Structure formats: structure tokens, C-alpha cells
């Protein structure tokens, strides 16, 4: 069982990473292979609506000037996908949105490549807007015929400090949410693997 985790934060070691690490630790403890991908500083563009992916049907985005196809191959290869993002203007980051648009469309037009994989979103926030980010990320999974995992709260961590992860350790409920998410994610993966 393998899970690929994408961090769409421009900070590799910031609050989003702190939250993702808790989920990843739970997955690893359950014997799941985890690959972490930080793409929050990538120069990755959005979908240009050329629809070549629908014509070529080669599981590739025809924009080949960035790492999208590498990321998509990791998604196709994995049993589960986790998307992490901080809250920017009450929504996900530009890089994460690019990943969603292009990986989502290429998967769809190639016969639903992500069908029956497991998904979860992870959100870091200073104060408000996280639930909207959470929905934006979840739309990707739910239109891809994936199974979305819940937790004891929506998967978000709150830290008034946006500059670094210092202080995120005080969000006890957030930490518990991510631990429960990791456990629930591993549970479903194991059930689906039977």
C-alpha cells in the first residue's frame, strides 16, 4: 500500500508540513509506504484547456514544461493521495490548484485513472477560511470516483504564526484530528486491499 502526499505550501517546513507529518507518521506506523512531494514553490501552470489529453489518451498532460506528469504518474501508482495546502485568500494555493486541474482532467479523459483510490485533504490556517480550502481540495477527490476519509474534526490545523510551524504544537485538537485521520486512512486502505 502506497500513499503519495503533496504539499502545496510555498514553505516546505511550515504549518502545512507540520500537519502532514502527523498524518504521515500514522500511516507509516500502520505499515503504509509514504512518499512526500513538496511542490509549493514549483513553477507549475494551470490547465490551458487545449484538450490534447483527451485526444492523445496517453495519461499525460501535453504541457510538458513542468513536473505535472511526474506527479500524475505518482498518483496513478499510489493507492491513496493526500493534498495539503495553507489558506490563501480563503482558498488553496496556486500550485495546488494547478495540480488539481491538470491531474484531474488527464485522469478523467483517460478512463478515470484515480477511481477507487483513497483521498484526504489537509489544511493549515492562521484564523479562518480553512473549511473552504478543505472543500476546494475535496472536490478533486469526489469527482474522481475516490473515497474520502473523515476525522474527528475537519482536517485543519490552526496556528496564528504563519511564518513557521512554531506554535502549531499548541493546537491539540488539530493534532488529534490529524492522528485520527491517519488511522482512518490506513483502516480504509487495508479494507480496500483485501
Amino acid at each position, binding site marked *: 500500500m502506497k500513499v503519495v502526499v503533496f504539499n502545496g505550501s510555498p514553505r516546505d517546513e511550515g504549518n502545512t508540513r507540520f500537519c502532514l507529518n502527523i498524518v504521515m507518521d500514522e500511516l507509516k506506523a500502520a505499515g503504509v509506504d509514504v512518499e512526500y512531494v513538496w511542490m509549493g514553490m514549483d513553477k507549475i501552470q494551470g490547465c490551458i484547456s487545449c484538450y490534447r489529453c483527451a485526444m492523445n489518451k496517453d495519461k499525460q498532460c501535453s504541457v510538458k514544461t513542468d513536473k505535472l506528469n511526474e506527479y500524475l504518474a505518482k498518483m496513478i501508482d499510489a493507492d491513496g493521495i493526500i493534498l495539503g495546502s495553507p489558506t490563501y485568500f480563503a482558498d488553496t494555493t496556486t500550485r495546488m490548484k494547478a495540480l488539481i486541474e491538470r491531474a484531474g482532467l488527464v485522469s478523467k479523459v483517460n478512463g478515470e485513472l484515480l477511481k477507487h483510490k483513497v483521498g484526504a485533504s489537509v489544511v493549515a490556517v492562521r484564523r479562518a477560511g480553512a473549511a473552504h480550502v478543505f472543500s476546494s481540495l475535496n472536490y478533486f477527490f469526489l*469527482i474522481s470516483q475516490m*473515497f474520502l476519509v*473523515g*476525522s474527528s474534526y475537519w482536517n485543519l490545523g490552526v496556528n496564528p504564526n504563519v511564518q513557521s510551524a512554531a506554535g502549531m504544537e499548541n493546537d491539540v485538537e488539530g493534532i488529534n484530528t490529524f492522528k485520527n485521520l491517519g488511522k*482512518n486512512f490506513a483502516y480504509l486502505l487495508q479494507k480496500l486491499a*483485501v
Partner: protein
Amino acid sequence: MKVVLFNGSPRKKGNTYHCLNFVMEELKAAGIECEYIWIGREKLQGCIACNECRVNGDQKCTIQGDNMNEYIQKILESDGIIIGSPTYFSDLTVATKALIERVGYSTGRLLKNKLGAAVVAVRRAGANHVFSSINYFFLIKEMIVVGSTYWNVGIGRKPGEVLEDEEGIRTFQNLGRNYAYVLKKLQI
């Protein structure tokens, strides 16, 4: 395996009913027992934040006089829940919201690993917001939410108009199949 479906539309046989029906037919074809409950005309009040359900810990809402405790019981006994609502002011209906609040607060962690799906009927716009509003309920209750080929949305205004929404019908049929697939996996 049992799934309970709630229709929060005030119309008994409106578009939400038809949308739910497409999902239900797939579930039944897969051998899953379905119970369909129409709540859209019931006087279900919202949570009054008395906190007594938490103090008592008995999975009962202390508000008397409506069917909520019966619904809580049905949900606790089921393996999956499907909640359908039309789009009212870009969100779910009052009956649907009352169900979410009171079931949500009174059931602790007992809905964990049950299956969930939202089904939305819409005339034109706002369906995705309804879809999210219902999914928030499942995702904070540690449930598993099932996806489809599109968001679970059917387009139509007059009762039955959704029967002409071919993509909507396909979405609900695929949702039903995916729901049955994972429900069976969870039994193993």
C-alpha cells in the same frame, strides 16, 4: 448491509427524490437493503445547544415532539447514510440542516467508518455549496465519503425535469455502484 436515505426536499416526488432513487436502485441491485425516509415536510427544529445529549451520552436528542430520535436510531443501525437536498438559497433545506445538527451532536464517535454520500438537486447554480454543506457532516463524523464521475448533482426545476439530465443520472448510477463497492469491502 443497510443504507438509510433521507430526502430533505419539501416535494415528495420532486427532483431530489428522483436523484436519490437512481442511487437506491443501484444499491438494491447490489443486494443492499435500503430504507428511504422523506423528511422535507416535517417540523424538525434545529439544535438548541442544551448540551444534554453530551452529558447523558445516550445517543438521544432531548428535544421531544418530532421524529429525530427515531432517525438517530436508524442511522446508528445502518452501515451507510445518504442525504439528499434541493438547493435553497444556495444551501440545503431547513429539515436537512436540522437532521445534520442533531444527529451530529448526539452520536459521539458512533458513525465512524460508516459510509456517506450527498445528493443534490438544483435548478441552475449553488449545488456545490449544498454538496459541501452535507459532506462537512460526514467528514467531521469520521465517515467515508464516496465519489462519482461528477459531483452528485442533478439539474432540474419542475418535478421530474432531472430525468432529462443524462449526466446527472449517470453520476448517481456511478455513485450507487461505487457506494456498494466500498460497502462490501468494509464488511470483510
